């Protein structure tokens, strides 16, 4: 690899200190120390990166600049652009999004006897679920309990989560693991069938279940296989670009757009499940992201324009360990499991500067402080980073541990000539998760718009203002299934009235009254990348 002289010198210091650093037990921060480090370093605390939302149910609240612009943007269509009397798809339950939450929801809705369809703008499985590496939490060991899990999740989220949602999350966790296991998901187990579990940042018990470091991929491909086995229709490369309501004000379908031909379609449904995922591809504050290509907050936009309230739309998660080097995989996720297995965070001088398993927001803040304020970062050529001492894993746990437990990480770096068993890697925070989203009740339904259910990363309030590792894979299963069951039940008692897109004009009137003038359109659907080509326009909209 093309390491600079400075990088090589720093790497030598990390190696020289490895034995001493491995023996070290870094102290955890006090509650006050955590508050301070967050306030002074976390990107969520930079006021000039947020704007006041001028219209809609969350008017007057703050959201990231990029999200606010999309929330206040023009719809992609006007009411007259589609004939709502010509219904192309007519179903009980329409699931928007083909990730883990959408697939779980579809399976449960199908199980309940509903006529269900998945629509997804890319392929089923093109989702952050596929990329979740580290694991899924559930309190299923004798020394653990859902109550301890509750405390970890609620406290880790700064006591901001909705208690009834946290209770559902932790109380249904073991049931979710069993459901997955019964579908054939392969969890790491010992020869007696006991789950091999580790810590995550902010957990007080070892309850991280994993499938090597392909945990999300293993879950996603199994759910996808099950969706296909059940014959649930998957309309792929087709985006929902606007919700449709009925004359009673209830959500009743969506306008769909073929991503390749741009042809529009009308889907009528008795209930809709919004499972569109996160927003990493909006690159808040210019951060790189660990998210998949389609993570552009579409569900938040669609729901908001139709009157659905958001919660904690100003709260994002920056994963502490994104790849800082090599530049070809800049921002890609280095799973927290690397730290769970014993790798420590080390600065340019070879010094361990914090406990590696603080919660993600605190850990990310610690790395940012080490690089920016304290000047102890390593210059990577395209920014700064700190070392994540991967060889320490095998120093502590023996040779072969990395290949067995984190093969994806080993492979990802090997493709660029780095052997993580021998050399430490450079990391810096990457935009990872949208803590906020659409506000739901415990049935998974929007608190303000009827017959609109939401599941997965598009939901706000389950994790408060910071999510623990392994609680997102958990949430997509628990709340995905929950939404599927409840949306199917509701569909049975629902008769759809006359379809309308009147909410677009209503929202436009509000925008005009607020003095909003913009050419922007939303949902964004896909980002545009030009990699610095001066002949291309990087502001071009898909």
């Amino acid at each position: 690899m093309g390491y600079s002289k400075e990088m090589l010198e720093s790497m030598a210091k990390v190696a020289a200190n490895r034995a001493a650093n491995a023996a070290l037990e870094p102290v955890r921060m006090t509650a006050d120390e955590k508050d301070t480090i967050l306030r002074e370093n976390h990107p969520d605390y930079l006021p000039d990166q947020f704007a006041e939302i001028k219209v809609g149910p969350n008017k007057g609240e703050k959201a990231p600049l990029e999200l606010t612009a999309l929330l206040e943007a023009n719809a992609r269509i006007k009411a007259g652009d589609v004939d709502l009397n010509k219904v192309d798809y007519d179903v009980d339950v329409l699931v928007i999004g083909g990730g883990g939450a959408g697939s779980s929801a579809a399976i449960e809705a199908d199980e309940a006897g509903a006529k269900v369809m998945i629509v997804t703008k890319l392929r089923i499985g093109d989702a952050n679920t596929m990329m979740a590496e580290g694991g899924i939490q559930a309190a299923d060991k004798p020394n653990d309990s859902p109550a301890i899990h509750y405390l970890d999740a609620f406290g880790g989220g700064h006591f901001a989560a909705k208690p009834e949602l946290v209770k559902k999350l932790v109380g249904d966790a073991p049931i979710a693991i069993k459901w997955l296991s019964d579908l054939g998901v392969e969890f790491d187990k010992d020869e007696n069938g006991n789950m091999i579990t580790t810590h995550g940042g902010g957990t007080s018990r070892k309850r991280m279940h994993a499938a090597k470091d392909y945990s999300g991929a293993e879950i996603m491909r199994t759910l996808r296989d099950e969706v296909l086995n059940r014959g649930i229709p998957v309309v792929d490369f087709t985006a929902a670009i606007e919700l449709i309501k009925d004359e009673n004000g209830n959500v009743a379908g969506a306008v769909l757009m073929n991503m390749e031909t741009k042809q529009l379609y009308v889907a009528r449904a008795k209930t809709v499940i919004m499972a569109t995922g996160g927003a990493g591809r909006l690159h808040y504050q210019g951060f790189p992201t660990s998210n998949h290509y389609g993570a552009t907050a579409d569900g938040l936009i669609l729901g908001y324009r139709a009157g659905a309230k958001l919660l904690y739309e100003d709260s994002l998660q920056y994963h502490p360990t994104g790849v800082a080097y090599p530049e070809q995989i800049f921002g890609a996720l280095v799973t927290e499991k690397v730290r769970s297995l014993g790798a420590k965070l080390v600065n340019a001088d070879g010094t361990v500067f914090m406990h590696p398993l603080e919660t993600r927001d605190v850990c990310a803040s610690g790395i940012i402080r080490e690089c920016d304020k304290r000047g102890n970062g390593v210059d990577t050529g395209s920014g700064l980073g700190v070392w994540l001492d991967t060889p320490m894993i095998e120093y502590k746990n023996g040779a072969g541990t990395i290949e067995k437990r984190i093969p994806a990480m080993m492979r990802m770096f090997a493709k660029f000539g780095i052997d993580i068993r021998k050399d430490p890697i450079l990391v810096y925070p990457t935009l990872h998760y949208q803590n906020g989203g659409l506000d739901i009740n415990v049935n998974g339904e929007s608190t303000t718009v009827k017959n609109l259910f939401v599941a997965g990363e598009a939901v706000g309030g389950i994790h408060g203002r910071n999510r623990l590792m392994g609680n997102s894979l958990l949430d997509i299963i628990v709340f995905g299934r929950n939404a599927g069951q409840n949306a199917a039940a509701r569909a049975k008692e629902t008769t759809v009235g006359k379809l309308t897109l009147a909410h677009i004009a209503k929202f436009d009137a509000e925008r005009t009254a607020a003095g909003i003038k913009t050419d922007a359109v939303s949902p964004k659907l896909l980002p545009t990348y030009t990699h610095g080509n001066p002949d291309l326009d990087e502001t071009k909209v898909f």
Partner: protein
Amino acid sequence: MENMVNVYLFGKKYEVPSNLTIMGAMEYAGYQLVRGCGCRNGFCGACATIYRIKGDRELKVCLACQTKVENDMYIATLPFFPLVKQVYDIEKVKPTEQIMMQLYPEIYACVGCNACTKSCTQGLSVMQYIAYAQRGEYDKCAELSFDCVMCGVCSSRCPAGISHPQVAMLARRLNGKYIAPACGHLENRVREIKDGTFEELLESLMQKPLDEIKELYNNREIEK
């Protein structure tokens, strides 16, 4: 000034910075990708790509998001491959040899050419895991195929028309559900939850005033 290299996207020549991945190079050339781009991190298999370096005879394969461009690289992406996916009811199938014979009989037509293994973008021993599937050794097939991202390149090179990723998918589900040892502590906990064992405790936590729950959180014992 950046180092530039020549690449041929579907045969057409473009000059792109040498530090880009193949996927980045396509975007630099002006493509707005819809197909052939998923997670951009090597997990989803959307960006299977076949290439040849000018002057070389060997066809190589890779994931476009995980591979740096080289000079004189001829590039063709494989955003979709028509794999055979058989449907089955996971509750009704059994982990016996018969199930493969029934659903994917073409695996027994394997000619042993090893083109699948040579073409795997993840470097897996594909032919070997198919051999395990033929023999009904699904645990071994599952383990060896575990890192498969289902990009489909192996199948595109197979003279016997085998859909290797789907065969492995079935083997893994059979292994996960029927062959791997059952988890006693999970079964116990699920039973306790269904009996309502934790209901009262959770309810009481939900009702606690903020100060009290903060106190509990900040002083909780952390397992070593």
